[in-house]
């Protein structure tokens, strides 16, 4: 039996084409992935991401615990209402998951991937043994993401004037607790927008309100093409437990220098750093195919220095051609992709294709 979010009936009402996504019955699209993708780039779209796992961490030992558990340093979150993108590594330096951590009033909130829920919870609990912390999963919360150039004003049109004022003022990666609602300026699309973590009983009303305000529902298909255009990694595809964060374009989530802190996996990643300096560590970068055809995950690539693989690929509706993330040997300058038995020339670019509706690579 597949799990359903509190918005399952709303997806059917909106014509959602439901699929099995990591054990959840979720909409892949509501008719056209490409129209939904463009809706987010040009106007505002609404995503149900209630399948993601919310975990609250509280107790005296929370800060010490999270500074050990996470690669990024939560000491940066020195007051409530801040967010940080980070990874959680195993002792070998492989990525257990990527996640966002929020500082709340009196506790911290983690939002982790749904496909990794069980192993993440097991790891969180295992590492908590020597800390005074309480780990509480919050399955009764729904998560709605609203993204696109019009997203923030659409959400604010449904809030009280006082709450709307607070949300309008939120900077990127900032958040606000408004009664029993938590609203954050975070997301996975490369557009401005909000993620709203709310009691499940409120989800349907908020959904209806946003649709009435002409925000359109967006399925997982467009969620994937939007994040790919934004050059954002997808766990289990662009990185996993066998991958060093340094081979997954994730160095920005590592805080190397902090007094008295040694996060799990640091020693292993230090060794990867040495390999990277010696030119022995593969790296994740962007690939563009301006001719016809679509780059797909798993396709082999051949560069001037060796072989690599496409970790995520697809058609970019904004650019009208295919883009991909590719892991290749250090120092590669040219790249050919094996497509349907032929080697096709593609172009290496920085792994960031579209931001705020516009092409961003050269």
């Amino acid at each position, binding site marked *: 039996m597949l799990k359903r979010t509190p918005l399952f009936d709303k997806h059917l009402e909106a014509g959602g084409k439901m699929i099995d996504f990591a054990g959840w019955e979720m909409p892949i*699209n509501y008719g*056209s*992935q490409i129209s939904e993708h463009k809706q987010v780039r040009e106007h505002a779209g609404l995503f149900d991401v209630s399948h993601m796992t919310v975990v609250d961490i509280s107790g005296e030992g929370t800060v010490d615990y999270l500074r050990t558990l996470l690669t990024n340093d939560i000491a940066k979150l020195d007051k409530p209402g801040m967010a940080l993108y980070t990874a959680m590594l195993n002792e070998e330096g492989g990525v257990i998951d990527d996640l966002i951590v929020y500082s709340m009033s009196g506790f911290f909130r983690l939002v982790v991937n749904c496909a990794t829920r069980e192993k993440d919870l097991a790891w969180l609990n295992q590492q908590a043994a020597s800390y005074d912390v309480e780990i509480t999963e919050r399955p009764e919360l729904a998560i709605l993401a609203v993204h696109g150039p019009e997203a923030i004003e659409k959400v604010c049109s449904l809030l009280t004037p006082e709450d709307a004022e607070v949300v309008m003022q939120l900077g990127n990666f900032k958040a606000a607790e408004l009664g029993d609602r938590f609203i954050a300026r975070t997301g996975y699309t490369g557009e401005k927008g909000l993620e709203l973590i709310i009691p499940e009983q409120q989800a349907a009303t908020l959904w209806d309100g946003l649709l009435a305000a002409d925000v359109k529902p967006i399925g997982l*298909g467009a969620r994937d093409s939007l994040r790919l255009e934004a050059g954002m990694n997808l766990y289990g595809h662009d990185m996993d437990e066998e991958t060093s964060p340094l081979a997954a374009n994730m160095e920005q989530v590592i805080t190397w220098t902090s007094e008295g802190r040694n996060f799990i996996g640091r020693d292993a990643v230090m060794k990867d750093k040495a390999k990277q300096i010696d030119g022995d560590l593969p790296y994740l970068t962007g690939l563009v195919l301006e001719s*016809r055809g*679509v780059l797909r995950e798993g396709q082999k690539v051949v560069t001037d220095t060796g072989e690599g693989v496409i970790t995520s690929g697809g*058609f970019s509706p904004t650019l009208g051609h295919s883009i991909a993330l590719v892991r290749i040997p250090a120092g590669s300058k040219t790249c050919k992709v094996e497509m*349907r038995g032929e080697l096709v020339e593609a172009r290496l670019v920085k792994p960031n294709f579209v931001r705020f509706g516009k092409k961003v690579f050269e």
Partner: protein
Amino acid sequence: MSTIKYTTSHEWIKLEDDGTASVGISENAQDLLGDIVFVELPDVGTEISAKQEVAVVESVKAASDIYSPVTGEVVAVNEVLLDAPETINASPEEDGWIFKIKISDESELDELMDAETYAEHIE
């Protein structure tokens, strides 16, 4: 009235009055593929056998080979699809035809499914 037949690989073939037939993918196939972003067409004049790969339809989800339902010669291709591949999503069994074929042996059509049998096949 023109006869329409379907293959197990989800192509349709429609016999026209002039002895040629048009070929495309079924409504069900376009629905499974999702938004179509590229179509690769055969060259006019190509001789093909039944069940031979003749075109490629690439969607947001996957690349799919299109197989010729019958043996014959490609006599026309739908060039509209090169710039507007989404025509297949909008009208898979009319405007979204992919190529036209001059059939060598009409008896090959007997091996294909009629609309009713195809509807049962995809259930």
